[in-house]
């Protein structure tokens, strides 16, 4: 029972970070209908940014998000302007291939510059734990859950309450209607891609104290982000949060009760089951 609770707790913690990755992907998809296959690589860039800040300037990984968020936002906005914007009306296959190509470029550029060696960030709290009702949980993951929750809450408020947030949601609901209402949908697209990239980068920064950092780390996150988004329903922010937690817990339980090497198999099987039996996701509108 104790093991069960402990693994469920760590699943929820890592699920919070997954949720952040998923929300970024779902916002991009919602506004532009582009599936971003380079999402994991954007997370990887966030990890390296954190690592550089930590090793060169001694910035704490959790504090570094103050730099990572704006930097990744600008990076994402530029990517959208230069690349993604050109294929908004292209075949979905071509959009997918473009982002796959972008992912390859990013991961291989990083490999070219920093080699494929594994990097780690060791802070004094890296392996410390905190006690929560008798269950020991990893301190860095606990901190990251707090930050994730704060960011998610701010994002909700932004999307629900501000004019820009409402414009983004309107664009996601109906691009043409939004444009007719005088919303600058092009700017919303840039904004959405920037926010998505910033969220992926933040997730990268938050997991960097507990993960190995290497150029190919992104691809596993890309696929997982899709699983999360499809699980929750494409385009649904609340769904992505829920999906992230479900995937985190599934993975954590599978790692404890089956084997850590096979944990992803369970995630993918769950993904296929959802695709087959509830393709609109748990909270999404029917689309398929």
């Amino acid at each position, binding site marked *: 029972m104790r093991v069960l609770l402990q693994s469920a707790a760590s699943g929820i913690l890592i699920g919070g970070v997954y949720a952040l990755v998923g929300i970024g992907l779902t916002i991009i998809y919602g506004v532009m209908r582009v599936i971003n296959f380079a999402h994991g690589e954007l997370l990887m860039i966030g990890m390296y940014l954190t690592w550089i800040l930590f090793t060169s300037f001694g910035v704490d990984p959790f504090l570094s998000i103050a730099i990572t968020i704006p930097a990744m936002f600008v990076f994402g906005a530029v990517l959208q302007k230069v690349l993604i914007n050109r294929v908004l009306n292209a075949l979905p296959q071509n959009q997918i291939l473009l982002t796959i190509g972008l992912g390859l470029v990013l991961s291989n550029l990083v490999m070219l510059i920093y080699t494929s060696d594994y990097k780690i960030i060791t802070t004094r709290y890296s392996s410390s734990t905190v006690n929560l009702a008798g269950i020991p949980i990893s301190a860095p993951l606990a901190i990251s859950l707090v930050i994730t929750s704060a960011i998610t809450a701010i994002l909700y408020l932004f999307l629900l309450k501000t004019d820009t947030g409402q414009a983004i949601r309107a664009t996601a609901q109906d691009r043409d209607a939004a444009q007719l209402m005088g919303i600058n949908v092009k700017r919303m697209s840039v904004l959405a891609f920037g926010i998505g990239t910033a969220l992926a980068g933040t997730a990268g920064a938050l997991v960097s104290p507990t993960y190995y950092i290497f150029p190919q780390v992104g691809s596993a996150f890309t696929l997982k982000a899709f699983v999360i988004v499809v699980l929750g329903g494409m385009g649904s922010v609340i769904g992505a949060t829920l999906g992230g937690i479900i995937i985190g817990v599934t993975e954590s339980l599978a790692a404890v009760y089956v084997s850590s090497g096979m944990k992803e198999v369970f995630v993918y099987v769950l993904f296929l089951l959802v*695709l087959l039996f509830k393709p609109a996701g748990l909270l999404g509108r029917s689309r398929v």
Partner: protein
Amino acid sequence: MNGAARLRPLAEIRGKPRGFAATGMVAVLLVTAGLVAFPRMVASPYALHLMILFFLSVAMGESWNIIGGYCGQYSVGHAAYFGVGSYATLMLLQYRHVAPWWGVWVAIVAALIVSLVIGSICFRLRGPYFVLASIAVAEIIRLIVLNWKQFTNGAEGILLVDLPPLEFGGRVLTDWLSKTPFYYLSLVLGLTTLLVNYVVEHSKLGYCLQAIREDQDAAHSLGISPPFYKNVALAISAVFTALCGVFYGLYIGFIDPASVLAVDLSVQMVLICIIGGIATNFGPVVGALVLVPLSEALRANLLSKLLFSVGLVKESSRLGGFLKENLAHAHVLIYGILVVVVILFMPDGVLGFAKKLIAKAARPLSAEPSPLIGGIDGPA
């Protein structure tokens, strides 16, 4: 460019000129004859190795083209068939001492079974959902192979110790010691997949596949069963991809999940087609012609040598040493840059782009196509 409107010959307007098929056939036969004679003229094992890689890439691209190009189902999980084929043959050879020419049949059956399972799951989904599902299934297979250590030797992979000589009627045909037999094997594989592509494209099957690609619902309402034809196309594609995997395993002599089951490999198969020109017979050939020399040039460090010889970067400088050290490992970077460039600037691939350029050059700029002809046949 005399400015006068020039009438094009009727044959050109209606389609390809009559002599085209014959000329094309002669050209293909001549090139084939040249390729057959190649090992007699060139003794360098490295040149043969490059040609083998080229033929293998062609075969991989042509195999993917059947499901991805003609049927429009962008499978990004084709490494599954490649890996299943190579693992089936090499495991039988290594652990049960079954000769590969028997093992290859097991590989084919295994690939067929896997393709039917994947097809029955993934073909219920469309568009991006299909792409995601195909990746997920391939990843499941990779993770199972990686973790089922007693059966597949896990991440350590399988090293082929010795390949039994090929005997026929008591006579040894080849002992596989030189690269020449592999050269001919890969040539046959490349030509066969090219032929299969041609036959599929010009058969009823091919027309049905293209109808499904253009508009699945319309095709369905005309009595074409999308699941049936998609599964047939996937099965053909899977069998030839598995044959490529078998060849790879036997030729390289070592397989592990990272080399024959990775997502990168699936992406590479897609890229060969996209870069050359999707849903065309010769697209994958052009794609392989672009990709293989480029990635090999990077691997052999030709690019950094070029930079040094031009004088852009000094070899002794810090950047020079860095480039020399690392550029060789980044050949995948070229794939990424190429695919971005191709998607943005030539969405029909290099072949389609070249055709467009030729068409532009052939037609006088000022000569507007007559509205009647242009209206019926569309732009040439």
